């Protein structure tokens, strides 16, 4: 039960039992020999690998070990052994500073890494979101967009006549023949706003106000091509992914988000200017590929800006210079007309020839503020409530 080595003398614990050996230190080149009182060798430690674990401020013992993390411990008190070791390793007494420096360096490396990662996520998220949106199957968009479409259709009359529906569906099929995912739906809502919406899940909604203001089927085709481009380029899903990335990656991780909130985001977030320009350009390409006149969107934007310059606050918020946007577009008028005059008449009268519709009801339930302009600036409200 009693240890041969009383406290306050140099002691060695071999890491096999808790027995305290009285320790006598000897040196040979590059090595520290630890012997017991009888001269038996207890351990042979390479001098460069010795480290100070701790210093006992109460009894003054220096606790030493090897840097390889093994269990043996040498307790040294003031005396010839400790003095000799410190002569061989004069930098040992600075162990506290070295340890603090090591800790700080490690934490700084990790903290810097965390900062770099945060910066990468913050600045690189835009590009990453394009890739991520590309990986998500188009079918997964269906429940999000479908819910918003149903809400809007429930709140407003969906205009429909056989001839106009056929004309619209034919136009969309011609403009965007290779749009992947769920089948495209195109519907006209009886709302007196100049607006059009592309919802995730390949839903396109035109508002009657837009048909009223358009002076040719090519302008409508331009708008449709713009919206179809949003869908083809996965802009709704990119918007969702980007939004989650910028503000709310944490909420997705810790379960704060649900589908309703996602849909809300998807519907209320304006597209970025880059996305709008991209959709403008791609829309023109689609029209050209379909052999249609490609100047419809540009002329519609110009007319809108000229006739109603004060009425487009939302539009102006995302596009400071609508004229420039129209000017940037390729206005190639060499293709065919989008619809024949009979079909164009049918489309214009899809909500009824003389029915003013819900002219007074333009303010309440409106989806994403479209870059294509709109009648009422107050209609920023979210479609999902």
């Amino acid at each position: 039960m009693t240890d041969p080595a009383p406290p306050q003398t140099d002691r060695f614990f071999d890491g096999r039992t808790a027995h305290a050996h009285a320790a006598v230190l000897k040196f040979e080149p590059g090595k520290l020999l630890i012997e017991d009182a009888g001269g038996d060798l207890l351990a042979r430690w390479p001098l460069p690998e010795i480290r100070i674990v701790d210093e006992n401020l109460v009894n003054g013992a220096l606790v030493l070990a090897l840097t390889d993390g093994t269990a043996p411990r040498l307790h040294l008190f003031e005396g010839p052994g400790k003095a000799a070791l410190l002569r061989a390793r004069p930098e040992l007494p600075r162990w506290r500073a070295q340890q603090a420096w090591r800790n700080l360096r490690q934490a700084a490396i990790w903290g810097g890494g965390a900062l770099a990662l945060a910066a990468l996520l913050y600045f690189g998220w835009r590009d990453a979101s394009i890739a991520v949106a590309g990986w998500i199957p188009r079918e997964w968009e269906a429940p999000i967009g479908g819910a918003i479409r149903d809400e809007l259709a429930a709140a407003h009359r969906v205009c429909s006549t056989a001839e106009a529906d056929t004309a619209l569906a034919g136009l969309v099929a011609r403009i965007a023949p290779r749009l992947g995912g769920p089948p495209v739906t195109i519907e006209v809502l009886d709302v007196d706003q100049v607006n059009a919406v592309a919802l995730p899940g390949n839903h396109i909604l035109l508002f009657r106000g837009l048909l009223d203001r358009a002076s040719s089927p090519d302008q409508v085709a331009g708008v449709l091509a713009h919206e179809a481009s949003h869908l083809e380029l996965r802009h709704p899903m990119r918007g969702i992914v980007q939004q989650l990335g910028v503000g709310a990656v944490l909420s997705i991780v810790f379960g704060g988000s649900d589908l309703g909130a996602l849909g809300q985001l998807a519907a209320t977030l304006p597209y970025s200017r880059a996305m709008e320009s991209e959709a403008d350009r791609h829309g023109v390409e689609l029209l050209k590929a379909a052999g249609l006149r490609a100047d419809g969107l540009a002329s519609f934007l110009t007319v809108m800006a000229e006739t109603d310059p004060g009425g487009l606050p939302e539009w102006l918020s995302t596009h400071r210079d609508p004229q420039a946007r129209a000017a940037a577009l390729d206005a190639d008028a060499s293709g065919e007309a989008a619809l024949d005059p009979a079909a164009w008449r049918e489309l214009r009268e899809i909500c009824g020839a003389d029915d003013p519709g819900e002219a007074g009801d333009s303010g309440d339930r409106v989806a994403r503020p479209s870059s294509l302009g709109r009648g009422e600036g107050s209609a920023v409200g979210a479609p999902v409530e």
Partner: protein
Amino acid sequence: MMATESSAGGLPAGLEEQRLVYDGRLGAIYGIFIKTLLLAIVTLGIYRFWGKTNMRRYVWSHVSFQGDRLEYTGTGGELFKGFIIVVGFVFIAGIARTALELAFGSLSAVAVVAQLLFIVAVVYLAFVAHYAAQRYRLTRTLWRGIRGGVSGSAWSYGIKAMLYSLISSFTFFLAQPWASFRLLELRLNNSYLGDAKALASLQASEVFGRYIAGYGIMLVLFVGFIALAILAVGSSGLAQDFLEIIQATAEGRTPDTTQVDMTSIAIALGLFYAGFAVWGILGSTIAFAWYWAGVAGEVAARLEVAGLRFRSDITAGGLIGLYIGNMLIVVFTLGLGLPIALHRSLRFFTGRYGILGRLDPDRLTQTTLDRPRTGEGLLEAFDPGLF
């Protein structure tokens, strides 16, 4: 090394009594605390793991047993790696769950089941973390060159802990002493100091009376609190206002604000929640202090390791003073008093367990149990404490 007699209170006579000695200084703890706080801010919280390790190294090295100090051999990097692994798992689980919701809809059976599984998994992992953290700490504790260890599987402990908790909740937590003793036994009987195994068989019946007393006090306090709240509402003339709110809610309209004193209602609700918190925290601390003192006594009386036996001097009054004092210190210093609370707790517990007998160092040999490579990351996710 085996116990000669193992019934509570029937300790072999003539055993020498010693105690753990804690000689840490509050100033030194504050130094580590402030440094950790500042560097954690600068490094976006990452330094926390190294700061926590420094704190443990200090505390361990200021607790001694039979004249020799403990040593903490864990590193901040190990804690950090464990934390990163957990963050990765949580991240992947979150993404998978969101993907399922997007694919099937948030109210679909698949998404709801995934949501439930996620909650169950979090509870399960909290138990697993508890066990794994004990293993980490014991394997990182060295005394005279001998380290501790924990055998057994944290994953299977997690399953057992879930089952015992489920049974306990079915009995309205009346079976809690039994359930927590079974789990405590699992943790104790798998613990080692070197090759010496801890051994404890705990009797819930020894503390059941104390538990029921605490349970009863909590019930009485709750009923009293509710009665007081109703009386207060009645005598303050707010009853009409509340009725209007309840009626409006039932009819699905917004309350008539001309009839309702919203400021007083807000104050009343604030007082109610504050009272509820006081009941839950202060009330349960006081009501169950006698029970916890009993638990400490029972564990001390039944535990033996390496031929050592134990005795607890912990009393209900002592526990109440410790915990209520710590709460007041931490609350009124806005958290800056945490080191004081830590220091008080260490002095309290090291001073109140008597260790009977002497450990024979020649017969205590090194453990062969595994030493996990990463630290309690899981627990870190649930309990990001100072220590």
